[in-house]
């Protein structure tokens, strides 16, 4: 009897295995019969999803007057340290919340704390899922989107403030331990190897809540980049094509255009390698996507990037846009990358961004990639001898201030009678919404391209990039 049952069990197992293997080779099932396997795969890539939703800068508030901004978490691993605490906060069932006004929130920057700034507002639920919180608590409903996370590290119980522009939700009584994070901040403070940032409101009397450096403690590192993709190397390009289509090059159609672009076509999918190193990929949608899902889309992108460019380092998601294509609903995700800890901006309008993906839930329809890598030239002779200007120095320079004034008057449609000379400077300073340090990649050379260190000044309508050494305007958008 037992022997017969064993035989039946073995037979059933063999049938199941054969169905699974057959499906792997030929069949496209109308519905998912093995959801567990799929789930396992999703979890495999969740680390990448977590990597995508990373802050791009950190404000460390030491006390009322002294602050610093870091772009590269480096050895301090601030974001990595906060993640377990954030997981506790987003999964805890016992906590209290309080809504704060913007003015109330700003007072907290004078207390010992860290603020993590994201480049884009993200869904709190997706952030929780990216941190592998399977059942996020109702913080995700109370503040559905966030663009920064504040954590108090002063005397007394720690607490979080989740923010989205002027909306702030304080979450306390969490019973979390921030001892390690406090130690990190203390270590950074004691090294003294950082630039002090000051509140513009307190220092320059403006009416905004951003921080500005007056003197820089160190220069922007000199960096040279080169294209990761070399279109002239046909062997390498063919290997890339094989990887994209998962087929031998003999099965892929290759077209070389007059301008030097190489196009590969297979089964309605197209891969185009431009002479400037820009890679473009198009794939038709396999089904109609009438409902967009950001979590599925992000996972699809995570899978896609893992498959095609490995584990991307120093790449972070900067923009999520909703798009529509022939009744299909999806997202356009834009990624930037960092070199030596600083964000890199492309000044070439044809390329615009390093990675741009149009994704419709499970399907990637369009993908553009322009990756540049650091040549790691560390020749001492190449070091900049000049002193780097601070953001304050730049704004205080006559040409910069005059440009800001001219644009402010134009953008606000002010006539000579409308201009109040007494308050104009304060109004211009108040119109600055963000100050960041970054590199600009002119994209004029395939290799040995020198990146320009810039101060990015963001106002309501414009972004200015000023050279950190000369103060000259590099670009304006």
């Amino acid at each position: 009897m037992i022997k017969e049952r064993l035989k039946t069990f073995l037979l059933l197992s063999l049938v199941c295995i054969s169905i699974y293997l057959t499906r792997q080779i030929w069949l496209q099932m109308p519905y998912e019969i093995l959801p567990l396997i799929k789930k396992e795969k999703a979890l495999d890539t969740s680390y990448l999803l977590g990597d995508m939703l990373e802050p791009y800068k950190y404000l460390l508030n030491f006390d009322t007057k002294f602050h610093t901004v870091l772009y590269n978490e480096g050895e301090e691993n601030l974001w990595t340290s906060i993640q377990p605490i954030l997981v506790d906060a987003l999964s805890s069932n016992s906590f209290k919340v309080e809504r704060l006004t913007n003015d109330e929130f700003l007072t907290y920057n004078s207390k010992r704390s860290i603020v993590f700034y994201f480049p884009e507002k993200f869904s709190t639920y997706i952030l929780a899922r990216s941190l592998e919180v399977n059942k996020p608590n109702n913080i995700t409903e109370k503040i559905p989107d966030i663009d920064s996370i504040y954590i108090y590290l002063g005397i007394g119980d720690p607490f979080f403030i989740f923010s989205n522009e002027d909306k702030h939700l304080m979450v306390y009584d969490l019973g979390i331990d921030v001892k390690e994070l406090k130690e990190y901040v203390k270590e950074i403070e004691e090294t003294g190897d950082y630039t002090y940032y000051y509140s513009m409101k307190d220092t320059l009397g403006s009416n905004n809540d951003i921080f500005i450096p007056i003197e820089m403690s160190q220069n922007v590192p000199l960096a040279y980049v080169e294209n990761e993709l070399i279109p002239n190397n046909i062997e390498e390009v063919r290997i890339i094509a094989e990887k994209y289509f998962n087929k031998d090059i003999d099965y892929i159609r290759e077209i070389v255009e007059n301008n030097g672009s190489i196009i590969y076509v297979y089964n309605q999918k197209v891969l185009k390698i431009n002479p400037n190193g820009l890679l473009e990929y198009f794939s038709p949608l396999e089904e109609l996507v009438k409902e967009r899902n950001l979590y599925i889309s992000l996972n699809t992108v995570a899978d896609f990037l893992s498959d095609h460019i490995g584990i991307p380092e120093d790449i972070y998601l900067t923009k999520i846009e909703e798009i529509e294509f022939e009744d299909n609903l999806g997202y356009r995700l834009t990624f930037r990358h960092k070199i030596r800890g600083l964000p890199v901006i492309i000044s070439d309008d044809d390329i615009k961004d390093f990675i741009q993906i149009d994704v419709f839930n499970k399907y990637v329809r369009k993908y553009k990639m322009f990756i540049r890598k650091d040549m790691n030239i560390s020749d001492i002779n190449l070091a900049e001898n000049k002193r780097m200007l601070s953001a304050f120095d730049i704004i205080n320079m006559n040409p910069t201030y005059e440009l800001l004034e001219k644009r402010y008057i134009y953008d606000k449609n002010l006539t000579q009678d409308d201009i109040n000379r007494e308050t104009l400077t304060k109004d211009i300073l108040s119109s600055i919404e963000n100050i960041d340090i970054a590199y600009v990649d002119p994209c004029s050379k395939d290799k040995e391209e020198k990146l320009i260190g810039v101060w990015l000044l963001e106002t309501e309508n414009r972004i200015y990039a000023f050279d950190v050494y000369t103060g000259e305007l590099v670009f304006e958008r």
Partner: protein
Amino acid sequence: MWKKIIASLFIIIGIFSFSSTGYGANMNTSSVQVARRTDRNRYQVTVPSEDAIATDKKTALISGKAPSGTNIVIEVYGTMDLTGKNFSLTNLPKSSDYILISKETIKAGQVGFAKEVELVSGINKVVVIFRVNGVNTVEKVYYVYDNALAEEAVRNPYRIVPTK
């Protein structure tokens, strides 16, 4: 009769030409520029707002307002009080006790001026001199304390008392 008319015309022309010169002078004459220069509200140290500050940081920000192009001298004085125990904010050094640590001339820009200065342990005096006639010099006093000494003082307040 003609003489009277001509004389009256001369007087009228004289009056008109005199008054128009007066309007022009309102915008450009040097006397007004002098008046502007002496407008003390345009020369201010806004940070720090207090005259005496206790801090554990050896860096301090001095910032303020001044018309673009104004030369401003910032002098930092310290004392030969290496232990930081001889002077305090309630027991300031005499003028002769101060020694010049640093001196730098900066120029005000379009939004004012700002400078980070390095301090030493103990009492420091920062003097901001606007190189303009009639504008007062501004002085700020900093007491830079050592956190370890401050903790010791809290534990045993009788051990760290000013000796002068």
